[in-house]
């Protein structure tokens, strides 16, 4: 069984990413369970998707300390969910911090650097991805989720190969967005 945790901030595209992983797993003949955040937290709040693929899956939510890989769309969200990572697990994290929507009001000086430093100190298998650079090269902020998925696939820890990801993109995303997303896969 592969345990995957995707986390980020509402609106970053975690749900589509978890659906693509699930699709690829089902194409392989595996069972899948996922669990998403739905409701109030979508409005600028923290979002988490749990994905479990393989055989004999019970809980749709990962137990703490069991994630083979955490795909974090934002540095602080990676740290917030770090207790889900298993010993020796992998973290793919997007470099850019998303300030909380209340930052200007509360005077929060959060910029993600402390969170990234924490990850560098405590996670041996860490890849910090400059997702925004890839988005810029592709000309769309919407490819962040695909870029992160591709980076995760390339570690070999996702249970989904790069080819399986490309197949999922072609089969599950509207045609006009194929080229864009396939480019993001190459750049990641």
């Amino acid at each position: 069984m592969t345990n995957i945790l995707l986390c980020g901030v509402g609106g970053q595209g975690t749900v589509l990413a978890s659906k693509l992983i699930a699709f690829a797993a089902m194409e392989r003949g595996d069972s899948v369970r996922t669990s998403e955040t739905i409701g109030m937290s979508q409005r600028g709040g923290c979002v988490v998707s749990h994905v479990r693929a393989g055989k004999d899956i019970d809980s749709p939510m990962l137990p703490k300390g069991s994630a083979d890989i955490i795909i974090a769309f934002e540095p602080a969200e990676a740290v917030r969910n770090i207790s889900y990572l298993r010993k020796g697990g992998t973290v793919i994290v997007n470099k850019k911090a998303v300030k909380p929507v209340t930052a200007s009001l509360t005077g929060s000086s959060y910029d993600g650097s402390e969170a990234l430093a924490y990850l560098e100190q405590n996670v041996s298998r860490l890849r910090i991805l400059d997702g925004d650079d890839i988005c810029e090269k592709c000309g769309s902020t919407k490819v962040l989720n695909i870029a992160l998925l591709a980076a995760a696939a390339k570690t070999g820890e996702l249970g989904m190969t790069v080819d399986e990801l490309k197949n999922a993109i072609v089969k599950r995303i509207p045609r006009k967005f194929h080229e864009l997303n396939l480019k993001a896969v190459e750049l990641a």
Partner: protein
Amino acid sequence: MSERFLMGNEAIALGAVHAGVNVVSGYPGTPSTEILETVAKNNKDGSVYVEWSVNEKAALEVAAGAAYSGARALVTMKQVGLNVASDPLMSLAYVGVKGGMVIVSADDPGPISSQTEQDTRHFAQFAKLPVFDPSSPEEAYEMIQDAFECSERYGTPVLFRPTTRVCHGCASVNVKDSFEPHKPEGFVKDTMRWVIFPRTSYLNHCKIEKRDPVLGDEFSGYRFNTVTGSGRIGIATHGISYAYTNDALKDCGSAYKLFKVSTPNPFPERLALGFLDGLDEVVCIEELDPVIERALTYVCGKHHLNVKIRGKLDGTVQPAGENTVESVRDVLSEYLDLKYEQADFPHPPELPVRPPVLCAGCPHRGSFYAVKQAVKGRKAVFSGDIGCYTLGNAQPLDMVDTCLCMGADVTIAQGIHRVEPDTLNFSFIGDSTFFASGITGVVNAVYNQTDIILIVLDNSTTAMTGHQPHPGTGITMMGEVSTRVSIEKILNAVGCSYVKTVDPLDLAAAQAAVKEAADMKGVRAIIMKSPCIAVTKPQQTYTVDADKCINCKKCIRELGCPAIVLTGGKTTIEPGLCFGCGVCAQVCPVKAINN
């Protein structure tokens, strides 16, 4: 059969469709909303009648009428909606149905997005109704079909109680490729059957008490109620906790028996006795109320069994909140040899808090701000309600002083007025909530000559639950356009002393209306009408003119709009977030914000 990747709510909907459901009604509420929406999406030929009713009571009665006529009917709601529907439900339990009728009431342990942690299994005991409790989307798909069959065979409405993690979890589910449509017989007049009278209620009560042990015995053989394993320690569980328990017990080094209860009412006593046989102790792993724990305690007492029943009642399990694999592990590791690895990470640095806020461009921000400014310096209480606008309670708006349940803003304000007649009592209600349960409160205020100011936040949708239509939108779930019910006409018709519709994005006009209303007596109503940003197109965005801006931060301090940010100490507007509502431009004292 074909395999599909479905959310629990989608599985419930397809299960109902594949059971030949004819009529589906409901009221939106997390975590139940997607069930009715999925039926509507899979209803291209219009063979199923689907409606969002004005509230859960109306929904249940519509479904009951359909079931009286032999149709298979489904009603969907969240757990607190069942409270609204409880009046017809309690009586319907006595009257019964002809066509199968299933009431889905989705519970929300945590609670994640609800007012209470009430347990529909308890409600089923109270109402004397059978209840099904699925543990996964796959099971929910099968079980809802069983629920229809059970309902029709026993002529009783049946409750179906998933919880959030089943509703919103997704799984690969095997679904039927075709199904038999159900053909309703039609309504057959029968006074003794369909008209509730004290005498018939007595007879029906007797029948229910006779039926329950029979049904409980049948449930002892139900395929989703299971007893597995052996040993002297037992675990009794249900729903999503069954999945957590199985996960926690992976590679368990000791022997145990596991009892899964999918039909807690009527309780499968015969199966429970088989489970209890030879046990020293039972640990009950439940969410919400200790329903199984009490039932097993009762069975042990009734049959003089010397088995210790542990759970919430003796403090073995936490009394409130969700279970998790870890919480179940923590409890069971006291009784069994569990093997698991725990990662050990050092304490993380302080992380940013991300509370939910009103969206950039949300018209409610303008409404709250206009009222706040208009009554500045006067004694005022702001009673709020359930919806996105509950978020008006956050700083810096701070405009929600009370929130209880759907529709209570109007009536709580009346009660406060009786104690504090000199206070301006405002009540804030959304458009969908107004239709759901606000109107009776307004009539109460007019009839009893109460001084309140009602603010209807009309954003032309049911925003919080994902933008469902309602009577004011004129769109139905059958894709038809019906008459839009006018909130303004209703308020005029019931006799409000002042009714005015204003655009809350025009702060001067909105404030003027509030000031005018505040100086009058009686029930004054202002409809703040502007669509939710999710159902309308963005306007031209605004920018801060850095030369004019004096950096007083008034826009940030008073509005709390997520699009207004500080960049290098300077006030700026995020173009990607700004929706062009223009409220900040009206607040700026030096006219530095322009589009």
